[in-house]
């Protein structure tokens, strides 16, 4: 069970719809400062509902929509699967945000194409040990955070997984 593909559309610096295939094993992502590497990590956090807008460096959710395009909606879709699994064993999680200007904004989750609640997404993912408390996503600066946190905060990490 691994990420087979991440589709990023109009999210942060990815104004073009971008499909990135991923394989099992050990993949690195590299490139110049400001090119968009951390934004790919943010897209995973965004899609799977693993964090708040602040940890994706946005003041509010609509800041995550590409700011250079006229289009005021963004979406990220992640396909999970097994190499030898059939297509109906794949799990596709999608999240869209739409900025309706004065009338606010909307965020919708989809599980395999059907609208789902964040709770349904989290339940499905936590069966595979994917959850905010799992720390399976380490953001730029998180290592320093673990070093600098208080002893109490560090103990709470164990509470989360107990």
């Amino acid at each position, binding site marked *: 069970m691994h990420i087979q593909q991440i589709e990023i559309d109009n999210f942060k610096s990815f104004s073009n719809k971008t499909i990135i295939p991923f394989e099992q094993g050990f993949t690195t992502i590299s490139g110049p400062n400001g090119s968009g590497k951390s934004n790919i990590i943010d897209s995973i956090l965004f899609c799977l509902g693993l964090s708040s807008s602040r940890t994706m460096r946005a003041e509010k959710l609509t800041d995550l929509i590409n700011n250079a395009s006229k289009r005021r909606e963004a979406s990220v879709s992640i396909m999970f699967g097994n190499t030898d699994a059939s297509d109906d064993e794949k799990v596709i999680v999608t999240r869209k945000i739409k900025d309706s200007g004065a009338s606010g904004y909307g965020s919708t989750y989809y599980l395999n194409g059907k609208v789902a609640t964040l709770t349904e997404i989290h339940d499905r993912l936590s069966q595979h040990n994917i959850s905010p408390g799992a720390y399976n996503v380490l953001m730029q600066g998180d290592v320093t955070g673990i070093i600098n946190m208080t002893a109490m905060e560090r103990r709470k990490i164990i509470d989360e*997984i107990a």
Partner: protein
Amino acid sequence: KLNAFLTAFENVDNNFQEIFAELSDGEGHLVLTNPSDPFNGGLTIEARPRGKRMQRMEAMSGGEKSLTALAFVFSFQRYMPAPFYAFDEVDMFLDGINAEKLAHMVKRQSEAAQFIVVSLRKPMLQNSDRTVGVTQKRDGVSKVTGVMLQHAS
């Protein structure tokens, strides 16, 4: 609830001792500041790089702290394995030798789980199976360029 915590703590501590020994050249362990009443205390990390005295994490060098924190994260990841891990530049403080050790550990772990690691460091890039390149032209639009396969070795 206390039992659940103590079971988790013991497992994570065992993992930490093993992983820390592998990553650094010394020994370390986790310490509950209030062992009889854990929820009223915290968790500290004590480590002794080889040849040096036991010290609390706060007194270590930048690279030593980084390695210790990573060993800690790997310890509870190993307790609750996830299908994928995504790391964003966790090798910044490490010198060449430690960056290499970390890359080897990720390579070994990647047989059991998928690792997606953002890095600018040669040891990490060279130990990975493939590299996804990200660039931007002057217009600020991110673009994923080809996937570069590393030498199979």
